[in-house]
C-alpha cells in the first residue's frame, strides 16, 4: 500500500505535540513524590509487639477474637504498668527493650484480690534488635526480629507466631490461645 506523503507533515506535527505533552506530564510526575514526602513522626521511636487473644471455634474457619473482662500487664523489673486492669481487652501492644536481647512481661488476669498476684502468666520474647533509620525527620527506631517466644501455662494454652519481623506496620505478631471455658472468662 502506498504511503500518502501529504499526510506526513501533519502526522509529524501531531507526534511532536503529543510527545511534548508527555514530556510535561513526566516532569510533573517528578514533583509528585515531593508532595507525598511528608513523614509523620508521632511516637515512632518504639515499635511494639502486637498480641491478640483468640479461641478456636469449631464452627468458624478462623480463630475468634477473645476479650478479657480486665487485664493488667507489666514488664518484669519495671514498676510502670502498661495495662492497668483495662476493661474489655482483646489485643495488647507491648514495648520491647532495645537495650537487651529479651523482654519479659507479666499478664495478670482478673481474680479476687487475695489471689490476684498468683493468677499470672509470663511471656518472654527473645529477639535481635535492628536499629533502622526510617527518615531524616524521624531518625532511628528499633525494629526487632523475633527468634523465640516462651510462655507459662497458667491460662495460656498455646501461642502462634504470625510474624517475626516487628517493624512499623500494623501487623499482629502473636496470637495467644488461652485455656477456654465458656462463661468463665
Amino acid at each position: 500500500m502506498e504511503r500518502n506523503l501529504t499526510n506526513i507533515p501533519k502526522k509529524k506535527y501531531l507526534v511532536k505535540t503529543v510527545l511534548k505533552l508527555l514530556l510535561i506530564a513526566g516532569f510533573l510526575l517528578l514533583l509528585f513524590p515531593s508532595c507525598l514526602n511528608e513523614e509523620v513522626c508521632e511516637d515512632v521511636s518504639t515499635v511494639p509487639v502486637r498480641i491478640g487473644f483468640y479461641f478456636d471455634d469449631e464452627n468458624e474457619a478462623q480463630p475468634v477474637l477473645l476479650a478479657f473482662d480486665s487485664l493488667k500487664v507489666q514488664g518484669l523489673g519495671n514498676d510502670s504498668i502498661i495495662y492497668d486492669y483495662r476493661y474489655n481487652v482483646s489485643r495488647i501492644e507491648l514495648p520491647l527493650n532495645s537495650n537487651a536481647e529479651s523482654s519479659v512481661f507479666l499478664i495478670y488476669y482478673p481474680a479476687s484480690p487475695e489471689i490476684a498476684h498468683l493468677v499470672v502468666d509470663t511471656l518472654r520474647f527473645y529477639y535481635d534488635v535492628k536499629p533502622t533509620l526510617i527518615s531524616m525527620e524521624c531518625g532511628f527506631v528499633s525494629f526487632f526480629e523475633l527468634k523465640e517466644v516462651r510462655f507459662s501455662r497458667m491460662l495460656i494454652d498455646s501461642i502462634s507466631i504470625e510474624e517475626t519481623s516487628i517493624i512499623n506496620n500494623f501487623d499482629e505478631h502473636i496470637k495467644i490461645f488461652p485455656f477456654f471455658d465458656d462463661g468463665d472468662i
Partner: protein
Amino acid sequence: MMVTYSVALSAQDENRTDTLKKDFEIKPFVRLGFDVSAIGRSIYEPEVRQLEFSIDSELLRNWFFNLEAGMMQVSSEQETFSYSADGFFIRGGVDLNLLERLNAQQNDLVLIGLRYGYSFLQHEAPYFFIENPYWGSHSGSIEKTPYHNHWMELTGGVKTEVFQNLFLGWMLRVKVPLYRTTDPAIEPYFISGFGHGKRSSPVTVHFSAYYRFGL
C-alpha cells in the same frame, strides 16, 4: 499523450518510494545523557545526592542498547543521629521504540525496556539515640559496612528531540529486587541507583537531557 503522462507519473512515484526507502537507513550514533531529576531531588531531599549518566545507541533498528552508571552520597548529622553512605551503581539493558518512524529526521521515541542493575555502597551510623519511654533510651553506633544489591527493571518513557541532536525525556522505572545483602547490621537508607531502602520494589521517574553524537 495520455500514455506518456501516465508513464511520467509512475516514474515520479517510484522515485518517491526510493527516497522513502533511503530515508530509513540507520546512521550510527552515540547519545550521552544526564539525569536532571537528581537536581529536583536535592531540593526536597537534600541529604541524598546522586549523579547519573547514560549512553545509548541504536545498534538494531528500533532497538537501543543502554548503559547507565552513577554515584550516590547520603549524609546527615543531627542531634539524635549521624548517618552517611556512599556508593555507585551500574545498569545495562535494551529499549524498544514503539513509535513509527515517518522519516529519517524524526528521532522522537516512545520506549519500553528492560535493565539489569547492580549497586554497591558502604554506610555507617557513628551515633544514634532511640527513645524508649518504658524501658529507657537506647544509643549506639554502627561501623562502616558494605551492602550489595542486584535487581531487574521494567522501563517505559519518551525521548523527544527538542533541538537538533538535543533530546529531553523521562523514564518510569519499576524495580524488581533479585538479591541483596542478607541480615545487614543496618538497612541502608538509600540504595544507589535503586531507591529508598525501606521500599522493596520502588517505582521511580527520572527526567534526563541527552545529546546525540554522530559516528
